[in-house]
Structure formats: structure tokens, C-alpha cells
């Protein structure tokens, strides 16, 4: 019997949102696990640090500055990945978030705020999946990991925009897993809970962050490393029969 492992040796992976936080951690971890990595994020300068870190450890990596809400730029990201590596095995859609616009009561929600959050968190997933899916359906293989949030299942006051977009990502994923299973493409979701990234700690006070952490059954906030374990599982052959699932990584039930 072959014992499953989390190796990504020889696999080509695109990671969006990889300039910081969870995306950066996943890009570094995937490279360490043997994957060639395509880094995508808006700010070219921030990607360069990750590129040099991965390269210095002997990993293969390219950076393609990309606004994932722009279909032309997303197509270019896929072209660059193919030019460098010839195929795409894994797509990790980490790009998203709400930053300082996370909590807006609906009566104060301007249309441009609504559009920008829904575009960044839901439309980006559609654009990236479609562009990469053109390659994966040809290859007849691939694993896509979308990022959702507990806010997509549990109502959080002030998060109609973000919560609805993330709930949309969850269901988009289940539909696409059903649609593309015949091409041997798996589509799954990781739904992180409270993770101690710089940006999470930026917009929540440390007292409040501690209070949130204590209420979690496992008694602590998560680290980006905790997300890496789930991402390696879903990207690797260890999950070859797993598709259309939502894996909450939050120290307790969602």
C-alpha cells in the first residue's frame, strides 16, 4: 500500500495574494514542498522579497504582478505561468479580504464599496478559475483551492458585502467541483478562522484579538502555518478523492 504524503514535487502552483500573510506563507511552503511557484499580487515590489527568499533556498519561482479583478491581467498571469513552466497543476486563490472596509452597516454601504469587496473576493475567483481552468481541462488534471472565511457561514454585523461574497465563494466552489470533476479537476475551499497575520492584527486591537482567541475551543488564534497544512493536503495527491469540500481551519467548528 502506498502511504500518502504531502509532496508537491514537480507540481506547478499559482498562488494569488502571495505578497503577504497567508498567501506568502503558502507560496514559501509550496516551494519547500517541491513545487515551482507563480507568485501573483498587485504590488510588484512586495513580491520581489518573496522571490528572493524562495530562490535563496533553491526553489523555482516567478513573480507576475497581477490585479486579480482584471481579466486581461489574469490571462497574462496564466500565459506567463505557461511560458515559464509549461503547465498548471495547482491554483490557490488567496487574494481577497476587506481590510479597513470590513465592517460597514448596510445603510451606509456605498455602491462602490460593495462592488470593490465583491469584485476582490468573488469575481477574482471566477476570473482566475476560468483562466486556469482552460489549461486544466485540457490537461485533464488539476487542484484548485479557494479561500473563504467563517464570515461566509456565520453572520457578522457589518459584513453583508464580505460575508455574501465569501458565501458565494463556498457555493461557486461546490458547483465548479461538480462541473469539472469529469476533467479530474478538484475544487475545494479553505475557510480560515482567526489567523494571526499582520493585517488581521492591524485592524483589531490586541485586547480584542486576545478576547477572540480565548473564545476559540482550542484556546488560541491560528498561525499561517496552520493554513499551510490544509493547503498542502488539498494540493497534494493525499486528497485525490476530495472535491467540493469546505475545510474550516479555525480551532473549532465553524
Amino acid at each position, binding site marked *: *500500500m502506498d*502511504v*500518502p*504524503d*504531502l509532496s508537491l514535487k514537480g507540481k506547478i502552483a499559482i498562488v494569488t495574494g502571495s505578497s503577504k500573510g497567508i498567501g506568502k506563507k503558502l507560496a*514559501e*511552503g509550496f516551494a*519547500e*514542498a517541491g513545487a515551482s511557484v507563480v507568485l501573483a499580487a498587485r504590488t510588484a515590489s512586495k513580491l520581489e522579497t518573496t522571490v528572493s527568499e524562495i530562490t535563496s*533556498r533553491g526553489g523555482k519561482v516567478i513573480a507576475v504582478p497581477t490585479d486579480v479583478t482584471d481579466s486581461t491581467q489574469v490571462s497574462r498571469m496564466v500565459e506567463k505561468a505557461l511560458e515559464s513552466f509549461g503547465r498548471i497543476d495547482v491554483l490557490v486563490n488567496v487574494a481577497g479580504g476587506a481590510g479597513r472596509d470590513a465592517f460597514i452597516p448596510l445603510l451606509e454601504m456605498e455602491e462602490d464599496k460593495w462592488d470593490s469587496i465583491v469584485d476582490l473576493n468573488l469575481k477574482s475567483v471566477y476570473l482566475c478559475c476560468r483562466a486556469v481552468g482552460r489549461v486544466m481541462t485540457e490537461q485533464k488534471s488539476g487542484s484548485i483551492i479557494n479561500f473563504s472565511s467563517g464570515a461566509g457561514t456565520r453572520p457578522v454585523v457589518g459584513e453583508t458585502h464580505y460575508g455574501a461574497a465569501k458565501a458565494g465563494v463556498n457555493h461557486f466552489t*461546490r458547483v465548479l*467541483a*461538480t*462541473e*469539472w*470533476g*469529469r476533467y*479530474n479537476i*478538484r475544487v475545494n475551499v479553505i475557510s480560515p478562522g482567526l489567523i494571526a497575520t499582520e493585517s488581521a492584527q492591524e485592524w483589531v486591537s490586541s485586547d480584542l484579538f486576545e478576547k477572540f482567541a480565548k473564545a*476559540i*475551543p*482550542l*484556546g488560541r488564534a*491560528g*498561525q499561517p*502555518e*496552520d493554513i*499551510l*497544512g*490544509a493547503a*498542502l*493536503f488539498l494540493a*497534494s*495527491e*493525499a*486528497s*485525490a*478523492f*476530495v*472535491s*467540493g*469540500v469546505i*475545510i*474550516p*481551519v*479555525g*480551532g*473549532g*467548528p*465553524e
Partner: protein
Amino acid sequence: MNLPNFSVEGKVTIVTGASRGIGNALAKGFAEAGAPVVLVARTVSELEATAEEITANGGKALVVPTDVIQRDQLNKMVQKTIIEFGRIDVLLNVAGGAGDIYVIPPIQMLEENYDELHERNYKSVFLCNQAVAKVMIEQQHGSIVNISSLSGTKAVALEAVVGGLKAAVNQMTKALAVSWGPYNVRVNAIAPGITLTERVKKKLGPEFIEQFSESIPLRKAAEPEDHLGPAMFLASDASAYITGIVLPSDGGPQ
């Protein structure tokens, strides 16, 4: 960078329902991956054959014939495990199923049939969780994986009772995760789709299986070994921040 540890090497693992089917495959897989395994089921001869196979491959196995609905037998099983291996790191709770009761339509089901299903698929899960968690809470660590079923979420005509019980197992899993999280004891479930064990293959026949497989997004029914990756993931430290989740292992949404 240290990658998340997916290994179960050295993790003392109790497997219930280890004589056949999914439990048997998981027991062999974990042993192959270096875990000392405790084989639990009612039929001694089948357990001993499995233990011989594991030992011949250089693995460690302890046979403890146990009826998992008998509390005193479970406590003895736990004691024997501690005497032999000193601790319990993982419980894979696979025992369950419907056997021949499966083909009885709900309208014809006798009370004794109902009681048997209830004892085998729900009471046993609670008793095993409780008996093992007493040790894990003391140790301040442990990972429990309950095997649920797709029938806990998908409505299947002949599985009104078993499906209801599996849905209850899902909810019990989540609540136990909340209860035991503070002791660093994680409780998760895997929900397999139809799995081609020897018994299922005989019961369904090749024609039905082929037809059924076409309705699964990944276009194949599970082999028992397909659940090994998910079980190792939830048992290992790669999922250290995951508790209270139900992970489908079914080839896509159904």
C-alpha cells in the same frame, strides 16, 4: 522552513471496525506509515489475520476483540492499549454500518432493527469517544476521527435511520470538539461516499456500481484506500488547528 508534519509515525492509534472494509484499510495504512495500531472488532480470527499481515510487514499491531457497544469491554480495551503502548494519540472510529438491515425499507423496519442500527452507529461512537477521551484529556492531547457517511447529508431512500444517525454523529463530533478543545483533544469526522469494500461490491454488483460512478463528479466510487489520506491528515499534526469539522471524502458534491 519546517513543513507541517503529515506523519503518523509512532502515533498510537486505535482503529475500531478494523476487521473489514474501511477500518481494515485504514489500520493497514496507518501501520505502514509507522503507527502502532490497536485492532478493535468483534471477530478475533479476522483481527488476527490483519495483525499477522501488519507484523509481517514490520509494523506493530495489538489485537483486542471488543464489542464497541459494551462499556466495560471498551474500558478494558483502553487499559490494554495503555499497558502495551503507554498512551493513545489517535482514535479512528470506523465501526458501524447497517449490514443486512440496509435493504429493509423504513416502513418495514422492526423496532429491533432500529435499535441495532442506533447502537452500532450512534451509541458506539459516543462510548468509544468517551472511553478514549478520558485518557486523551489526561494526556492533554489527542485526535479523534469519527467515520460518518454521505448519507448524513444526502437523503437516501433506504437510509432514513442510518442517515439520521450519521447526521447525529456529525453534530456530536462538532459538540465534542467544543467540549474537549480546551484539553487539546481534537474531534473531527470523515464522511465517505459509497465505498467499494468487498461487502458493498457483492451487494451492489458491477452494473450498479458503474452506473452509480457516473453520478459522482470525479466519475469513480471510492476504494477503501481513498480515505487514508484524509484520515492521516486529520490524525496528524498537519491539522493541528482543525477541530469540529466534517470532511467529505466522496469524489465531489452529491
